[in-house]
């Protein structure tokens, strides 16, 4: 049956003062917070808050593959399981994984594989579990970003981190990092991910309608945004160690020389 409050689309996605509904300028990202080492049992883990998105990722591996027949004799395999909790969306999601979750899992795995040295770990698997506990647009980008962070936290050798972000078009204007409502009511959405060892794009999906010029501008905006997210990612990864060092130094330990 229906819910008492409806999830309505707003008529306009810009306010009177030209800002977006959540008060951002066109090329502003939402607030992003990341942290590594949040799940003690995992080999590596990370947590991200990207606007209202809240996502956990954990990494296990390299370990023996179950079921065994999936193992490849010449290289390791990377498996990604992207899932959402039932309460992460407005209408309660069914508990079993849907087609959307399976597709995004595959997209993220394909996006991350180029940075790994899977050929060094034949017969094994790396597993990344991603759990979206609160969703508000752009979960595939946030998930890719947090998954790369969890891999690095596990000490898995990587060519570089991977960072992802979306750009889109709402009410005829090009904007960075669509929120949930902008994603639903907007005209176009372009999630991309960058692998930093070669500065190439490793995730690219596009839905909507834009002309040639707009598309070129999209790519410029994406590069700018990705750079900002990358810095937050690096900071989170190092902060885990820096914080302990700071504490030790406060107690008079860890001398400079």
């Amino acid at each position, binding site marked *: 049956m229906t819910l008492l409050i409806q999830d309505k689309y707003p008529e306009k996605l810009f306010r009177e003062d030209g800002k977006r509904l959540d008060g951002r300028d066109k090329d502003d990202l939402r607030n992003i917070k990341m942290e590594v080492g949040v799940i003690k049992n995992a080999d590596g883990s990370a947590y991200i808050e990207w606007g209202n998105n809240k996502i956990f990722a954990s990494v296990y591996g390299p370990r023996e593959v179950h079921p065994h027949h999936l193992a490849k*004799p010449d290289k390791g395999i990377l498996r990604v399981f992207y899932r959402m909790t039932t309460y992460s969306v407005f209408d309660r999601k069914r508990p079993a994984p849907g087609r959307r979750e399976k597709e995004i899992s595959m997209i993220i795995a394909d996006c991350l594989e180029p*940075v790994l040295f899977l050929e*060094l770990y034949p017969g094994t698997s790396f597993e990344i579990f991603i759990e979206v506990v609160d969703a508000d647009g752009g979960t595939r980008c946030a998930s890719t970003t947090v998954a790369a962070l969890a891999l690095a936290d596990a*000490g898995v050798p*990587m*060519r*570089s981190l991977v960072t992802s972000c979306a750009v889109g078009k709402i009410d005829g204007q090009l904007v960075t990092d669509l929120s949930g409502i902008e994603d639903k009511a907007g005209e176009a959405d372009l999630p991309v991910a960058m692998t930093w060892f070669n500065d190439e794009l490793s995730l690219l999906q596009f839905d909507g309608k834009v002309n040639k010029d707009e598309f070129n501008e999209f790519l410029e905006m994406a590069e700018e945004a990705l750079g900002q997210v990358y810095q937050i990612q690096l900071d989170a990864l190092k902060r885990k*160690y820096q914080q302990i*060092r700071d504490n030790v130094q406060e107690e008079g330990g860890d001398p400079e020389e």
Partner: protein
Amino acid sequence: MENNGEVETEDEIEDNSTTREIVAPGEVLTTDLEAYKRGRGTILNKDGTKIMSVLVGLKQIRNNYVNVIPLQGFYTARTGDKVIAIVVDKNPVKYRCDINAKYQAILRPQNAIKHRKKRRRRDKLDTEKFDIGDVLIAKIISADRLNSPELTLVGKYLGRKRDGICLTIDPPKVPRIIGRNGSMIKLLKSETNCNIFVTQNGRIWLKGDRFEYERLAIEAVYKIEREAHTRGLTDRIGEFLKQEKEKRGIN
């Protein structure tokens, strides 16, 4: 307490060639390829113009090589390593052991008999000797990238442990538990009166005569693991052990 067959490791974090700079995978370590060569934990970019890190670690420059000392990672089995293994499965011809690595290791009964030279016909080659769950100190006799490593119990200090407790820490931090020339482990042993054995796969076996001492030793081990990337660690742990002993009234 005498050295009971611990591995020799190099405690690189305390070394002056290791910088304090924490690096992440993909970060450029240097673009000066005339002065530096790429060492452990690094790769060259596609054009061969930059040396980049592949790990989260500390940057080290030693003999013109740029290295990255990992701060986190997993154990890869190597021939000759001593490991603490837990028997997890067995069939009539072999034991399967967990060694905290990506593959389980195999122990064959002929490698589980102590004095091979004196072996008699009546030495039975079956897998009755150990049970599932037994903790063994073993040596790796063969390991490669593709196959399960093989273990032996023939050698000094090797064999089953019948009591004590076994901890697992992050394998790259093992050199810190041992310390420079074994200084850290000597300190732990003498201050806690515990018998401690550390192996390269990140496992630590320890046993003391009192629960309070064992707990203190365990806490110290985890403190070392947590603060592994900071310098002056041995002094701090010494201080920690003295303070805690006083606080807990165990002397």
